[in-house]
């Protein structure tokens, strides 16, 4: 019974792994691909350990089960120092082997991935607010909501912060996640190798609208990117503080583009109170979601694009 | 390891509080409880130090702290820890009346300490340093308030112990209670030393 279970398990592994369309294992940039390498390395080691444990277990269960003709029974073995040292040392060795690439990768991810062109990283401030993502390009002085355009093959430095609760910025195919917190700034380097649209999302629970807190990352060629920036700088509407404050309300919104950034009047990484103050300015009051007058109109879901 | 469960030998040299099994169990249990209290106060101190610079727009602690008052509180508390020790000493000599006397002194001094602390708090609050003024003041009041609450509980506890000793005489059970009460009292003293250095004296240098 045990054996059939294990072979079933092995089969399942093969079926699922052979697909390999899994976002994390299908990286589209140098950051995610370093992480993928690390993950595969660990999977190989862990698979060996699992195999050893399963084999020993099945072997012992078959050999030493209570049955006729079982004469290899010795109830008084209390231990064996050599063996015990052996299986203390082996895990230590495995853990050590895994530590080196882990630590190296951790330090690598703190810096910009090696760019094919030696250009400076593009800086984008990504701010989470319930339940939307706001992207500000300080150099270009433009701002987008719920989507972000980046040039391919150029490192992008995301400076993350939040207007209210803690969110997590994650684009699985480009690299691992990082938290965004009000009053704090975290940094995350990502880079896309191929043109394309990658889905990103908040992966840390932030309340009612959390499940839909997605955004798209469009990786486009550098000239196209420059053209896009130019177009926005000239054509997109200006963001006022009043308009921005509306984004602070707990709502879902569509995609927006503006020809200036909110950094002109607030940086949430130094001003943790702004988001909640903005709600208060607009007369928003938090209410018990379980009170029966649930029906009172909240600030409704907005749809559509401005630009 | 040979931690044989003890074969307890009770002689007349065994302190009174250790002579009954329940007394021994209670004292060991209380030591372990003090371990938990250490973890509790460590967390409070940790919080205090993490939030020490987060005074926001509220009044700064440097402007308020009156070291003279705090020094007085410290002396009062240290003295009552000493008198509490004397009470246990008298208890072991089976001097019931003297023990009660020293306990009464301890309680009085404890109450004086508490009064001074309340005075201090009221003063701070009147200057705008309330519980909700800033993260710093929240952690300040939580740390000192928890200590103060412990002192208040200690006072009430000692009063009950005295009542019990008066009504049921000094025996192995009540002796273990006096002893445990004194452990608690000394512990609060130690915590206060840390508060005095970590919260007040530190303000002189930073």
């Amino acid at each position, binding site marked *: 019974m045990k054996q059939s279970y294990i072979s079933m398990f092995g089969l399942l592994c093969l079926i699922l792994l052979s697909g390999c369309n899994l976002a994390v294992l299908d990286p589209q940039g140098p950051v995610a691909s370093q992480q993928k390498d690390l993950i595969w390395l660990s999977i190989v080691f862990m698979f060996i350990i699992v195999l050893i444990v399963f084999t020993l277990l099945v072997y012992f269960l078959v050999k030493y089960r209570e049955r006729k003709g079982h004469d290899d029974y010795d109830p008084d073995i209390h231990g064996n120092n050599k063996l015990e040292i052996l299986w203390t040392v082996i895990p230590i060795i495995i853990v050590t082997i895994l530590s080196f690439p882990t630590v190296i990768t951790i330090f690598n991810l703190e810096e910009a991935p090696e760019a094919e062109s030696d250009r400076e990283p593009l800086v984008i401030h990504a701010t989470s607010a319930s339940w939307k993502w706001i992207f500000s390009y300080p150099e270009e002085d433009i701002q987008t909501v719920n989507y972000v355009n980046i040039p391919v093959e150029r490192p992008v430095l995301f400076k993350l912060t939040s207007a209210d609760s803690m969110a997590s910025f994650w684009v699985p195919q480009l690299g691992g996640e990082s938290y965004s917190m009000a009053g704090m700034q975290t940094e995350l380097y990502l880079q896309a190798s191929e043109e394309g649209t990658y889905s990103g999302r908040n992966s840390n629970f932030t309340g009612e609208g*959390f499940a839909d807190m997605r955004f798209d990352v469009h990786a486009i060629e550098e000239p196209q990117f420059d053209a896009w920036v130019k177009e926005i700088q000239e054509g997109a509407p200006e963001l006022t503080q009043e308009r921005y404050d509306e984004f602070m309300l707990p709502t879902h919104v569509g995609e927006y583009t503006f020809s200036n950034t909110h950094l002109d009047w607030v940086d949430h990484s130094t001003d943790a109170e702004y988001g909640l103050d903005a709600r208060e300015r607009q007369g928003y009051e938090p209410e018990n979601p379980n009170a029966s007058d649930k029906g009172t109109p909240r600030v409704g879901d907005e749809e559509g694009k401005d630009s | 390891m040979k931690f044989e469960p003890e074969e307890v030998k009770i002689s007349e040299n065994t302190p009174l509080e250790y002579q009954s099994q329940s007394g021994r169990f209670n004292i060991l249990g209380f030591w372990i409880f003090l371990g938990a209290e250490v973890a509790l106060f460590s967390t409070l101190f940790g919080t205090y130090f993490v939030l020490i610079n987060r005074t926001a727009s509220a009044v700064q602690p440097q402007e308020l702290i009156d070291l003279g008052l705090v020094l007085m509180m410290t002396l009062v508390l240290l003295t009552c820890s000493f008198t509490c020790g004397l009470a246990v000493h008298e208890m072991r000599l089976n001097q019931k009346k003297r023990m009660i006397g020293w306990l009464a002194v301890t309680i009085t001094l404890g109450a004086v300490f508490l009064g001074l602390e309340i005075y201090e708090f009221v003063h701070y609050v009147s200057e705008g340093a309330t519980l909700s003024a800033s993260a710093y003041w929240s952690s300040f009041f*939580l740390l000192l308030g928890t200590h103060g609450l412990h002192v208040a509980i200690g006072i009430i506890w000692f009063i009950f112990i005295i009542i019990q000793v008066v009504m049921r005489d000094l025996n192995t059970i009540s002796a273990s209670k006096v002893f445990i009460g004194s452990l608690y009292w000394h512990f609060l003293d130690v915590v206060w030393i840390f508060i005095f250095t970590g919260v007040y004296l530190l303000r002189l240098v930073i």
Partner: protein
Amino acid sequence: MSWDEFIVTGDPFILAAQISIVITTIVIVFGLTYFKKWGYLWNEWITTVDHRKIGIMYIIAAILMLFRGGVDALMMRTQLATPNMQFLDAQNYNEIFTTHGTIMIIFMAMPFLIGLMNVAVPLQIGARDLAFPFLNSLSFWTFFMGAMLFNLSFVIGGSPDAGWSAYMPLASNDLSPGPGQNFYLLGLQLSGIGTLATGINFIVTILRMRTKGMTLMRMPMFTWTALITSVIIIFAFPILTVALAMQTFDRLWDTAFFTLQDGGMPMLWANLFWLWGHPEVYIVILPAFGIFSEIISTFARKRLFGYTAMVISIVAISGLSFVVWVHHFFTMGAGAMVNSVFSITTMAIAVPTGVKIFNWLATLHKGKIRFSVPMIWTLGFIPNFTIGGVTGVMLAMAAADYQYHNTYFLVSHFHYVLIAGTVFSCFAGLIYWYPKMFGHKLNERIGRWVFWIFMIGFNITFFPQYFLGLDGMPRRVYTYIPEEGWFSLNFISTIGAFMMGIGFALLIYNIYYSFRYEQRETTGDSWNGRTLEWSTSSAIPPHYNFAKLPKVSGQDAFWEMKQLGEDTNEIKQYEKIHMPNNSANPFVMSVFLFIASFELVFPMVDYCDFRVDWNTCMYDSKVVY
């Protein structure tokens, strides 16, 4: 505050729950009155200080909570079965996953294990009861009242909805309004008192009440784990107490510990929570290791392999448990150095755990293995827990964790360790010590069905979730869209969840079936046991446990006695036994604590007025409430 803010209304599920609660209460009250059992309930159970009865009450409460948490789980899995499912809305889903997590950890896993500790530990060390029977009763009742307070939130006031980790500022008044989160804070606080007292109780009991000859290194492994677990409780729970108090203050009295305003620091909550939370994980896994150690050596009919190494391992694990908490938020940007250090300490836990796994395997070597039901749960534990363990090592590698964090990969990992470890051990321990508690075994044939259905269902539920995680599915989403491509794996997972539900139902049926039909035990030694609990005279030991306290001369004390042909129950000389009296005080005290906590949960109008008055007269305050 109006009445409709008090009672949750307007949701069919909750209405159904309210009705069923009322009906159940009426049935229970009527039944107790009709069969004249009030006195029995009061005298034999509510006021008891007997360790076994308290243990049994812990276990019953834990099974009830397992049912509640399990229903939550099935509702979540139903909601996630297909994309854009409309079974629950976001708010309901958030409340349900919050209560599922909290209940399973705090009100199911811990009490279940504490219950088993209560039943077995005094018997294993040859003691007549715990050191503080009164305190033990108080522990149970504060836990029970805490659990009831937390569960009450479902029908009164609304459940907490900020996740079981209750991260600030999400859990603050601004972002989680209403009394729900207060239920969480006060429910945990109340039951935390009981847990701390249990810890003290077991340490004193194990250090001071062992019978003659039982040195520390002759103690059964389960007793060892109970001791180490208690030590972890002593140092971990005060951290939770403080953290909960601070969040409660933030919500009720406008302090600024974790708030966004006035300089508060939300990250501090995450640190304090996991400083308690990680040791907590070991509080629920170490006793499980102990139970498996007992069962393996009993049914392999062989001494536990590497006893000393096992003891060193649990001590090492308990030490390491306090220095790994940052791995719960590698993604918080603490810096490369910090993440590296905590990566390595976390991976280091794999070493003592690995030692334990191999020692268990070695115990099987040259044994004579009997596949009784407790044993098959244990044998199921080894491979499944290994999968959970190795994925834990993968998660410990911080750079890779950035890709697993907050995904179903993580969800699957901790269910593999908590279900295959803790839940399997609870079932195994329950079945193993069942004859000690109730005087008959659970039916073996049904037991095997329970195991296979539950274990296969468990794998069908959680194995696909590793791949969902790698495909980018975050945890705690209440729904997903078809384009994300997560449908098939989610659907498989839901099927597995219902299999686990069937397994659990069958286990409950087995309890009923065995009560009716299973043969009663005549000896105390149901499984050819090795430790002292099997040496007491009757199947249900008398309340003083041992007529004569046994004398021990080695590990596996009872096994040795049997080898030497000693009869433990032969009594030459009767000694006087003093047993503590029943007491109603713990129950009454807990009821008052319950009422006091309940008062705090609701920000009542009159109470607010009182607060404002008090503030204005005391504070001369400029602060506006």
